[in-house]
């Protein structure tokens, strides 16, 4: 576990216990409400506008399909979790949404994937714009070997912003959104690599937010973190969904249940079931989903 100072530790422990208490209460209330107002057979929420839409989308590495025939809509200002066993294609799908999979040679796609009603695999798409609209947070915190400030300012600088005051403001706002500002504001010149693992991951979130994206993709953002850092990130996800659409891939089913509104279960490259998280975890309609969420397989 990364070193942190004692005070910090006590505060975060107290905070995480308190949060846990609060959210569990909230969850109970929510569950009741949902049970009363929304019977389980009503599936998707009444939102007409999806921000991401996959239409019979398949992704191939060479001749091997990473995901095949995915059709789903992801709704704005919500957390959508993608769950499933290893190698099921959940990361492949996530990484298709900002086309970072393009770095791998010999790939091709079939079907369509829309972000903001734009077909992102069409030839006209501007990849730089796409990636600035669809930010990404990786499994292992990957800050650049630069100062905290330069890490967060990297995105705006790519956009050609040079003015110190503008950069300063963007960095501050992004760090505040990522709940890291108070911990680092006195030492923005410090190397990002000197931060603890959890702080590094929040820095990466701040960095992704610096380009003002609409969507935030998170590829198992907590799998390299300890429980305290994890709970901080989860709290953060909770606040961020007010302003951003979040798609999160996670191995941890408790985490999916805690943070997400919608959940998609992938298996062997196919979308098995996509529904409200509460339904996926309590009353899935597919046998495979049920086996997976109850821990009987995967």
């Amino acid at each position, binding site marked *: 576990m990364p070193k942190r100072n004692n005070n910090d530790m006590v505060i975060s422990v107290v905070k995480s216990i308190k949060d846990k208490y609060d959210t569990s209460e909230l969850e109970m209330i929510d569950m009741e409400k949902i049970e009363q107002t929304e019977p389980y057979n009503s599936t998707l929420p009444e939102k007409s506008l999806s921000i991401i839409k996959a239409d019979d989308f398949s992704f191939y590495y060479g001749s091997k399909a990473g995901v095949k025939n995915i059709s789903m809509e992801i709704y704005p200002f919500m957390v959508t979790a993608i769950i499933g066993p290893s190698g099921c294609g959940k990361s492949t799908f996530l990484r298709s949404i900002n086309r970072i999979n393009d770095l791998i040679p010999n790939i091709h796609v079939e079907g369509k994937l829309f972000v903001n009603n734009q077909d992102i695999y069409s030839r006209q798409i501007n990849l730089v714009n796409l990636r600035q609209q669809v930010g990404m947070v990786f499994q292992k915190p990957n800050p650049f070997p*630069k100062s905290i400030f330069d890490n967060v300012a990297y995105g705006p600088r790519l956009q050609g912003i040079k003015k110190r005051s503008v950069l300063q403001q963007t960095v501050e706002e992004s760090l505040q959104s990522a709940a890291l500002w108070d911990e680092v504001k006195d030492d923005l010149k410090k190397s990002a690599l000197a931060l603890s693992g959890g702080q590094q991951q929040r820095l990466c979130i701040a960095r992704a937010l610096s380009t003002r994206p609409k969507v935030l993709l998170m590829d198992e953002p907590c799998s390299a973190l300890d429980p305290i850092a994890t709970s901080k990130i989860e709290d953060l996800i909770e606040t961020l969904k007010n302003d951003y659409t979040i798609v999160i891939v996670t191995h941890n089913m408790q985490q999916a249940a805690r943070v997400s509104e919608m959940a998609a279960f992938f298996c062997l490259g196919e979308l098995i079931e996509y529904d409200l998280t509460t339904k996926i975890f309590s009353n899935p309609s597919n046998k495979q989903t049920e086996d997976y969420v109850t821990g009987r397989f995967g």
Partner: protein
Amino acid sequence: MKQDKIIQIALTIVALSAISSLVLITVFVFKEGLPIILRVGAKDFFLSGDWYPGEGKFGIMNMIIGSLAVTAGAIIIGAVFGLGCAVVLTQFAPRQLVVILKPAIEVLAGIPSVVYGFIGVVVLVPLVREYLGGPGLSILTSSIVLGIMVLPTITSISVDVIQAVPKSYRDGAIALGATRWQTTHMVILKAAKSGILAAFILGMGRAIGETMAVIMVAGNALELPHSILDPVRTLTSNIALEMGYAAGEHRQALFATGVTLFVIIMILNTIALTISRRSAGKAAKK
């Protein structure tokens, strides 16, 4: 157990004899070379350009300048092309091209230096003489020839250090909307900076020690050069050219030239080692 002991002792002796040859060479060169520096005086030896062995004047300043000028030129050329090659090979070239290009560059290292010198004399010298003026045998010509000779060293070390940059840096930059070139120069080259610097310095060490090719294209004049089109004599050429007939003090002065070269190369290698160790230490901390 007994067998182990014997093998251990035998291997230790082999290892020590390899190192002892280094020690012996060092001792010998310094023993032969140092007295003359002391006798002539360090100031007259290093800071005078008068090299008249017959009259007992041994000033090697012009040759030090010659060596440094040729090396600097070589490293500029080698750095531009070597780093360019490394960036293309690691970032932009499709795999099929890398498979051809990388071995091709490494083959450059296997060509004997006399062949480089020969091509320099036959092709480069007339070109320089015709289009740029001067005798053709010059700092510029030697720099170009040496630049090509250090290319494989710089390229292969740079490729290694660039490939050692964690892939997650590239992913992070690309995910923020950086283009390939922005990712390369703002993140990857910055992260590999110290390793690349070490590659340049090792290339420099190679360039300053090269003898045969330089003798053939540098012109070997003893005057102080005034432009890059003037001929020069380097420290190494001086030793190689005069060793055959030197005796007495003259011979000692050539050893002293060797001492100078030895010290310069030692300094360069130490700097390169320190830099690469420091960057390795940094990488280990991550």
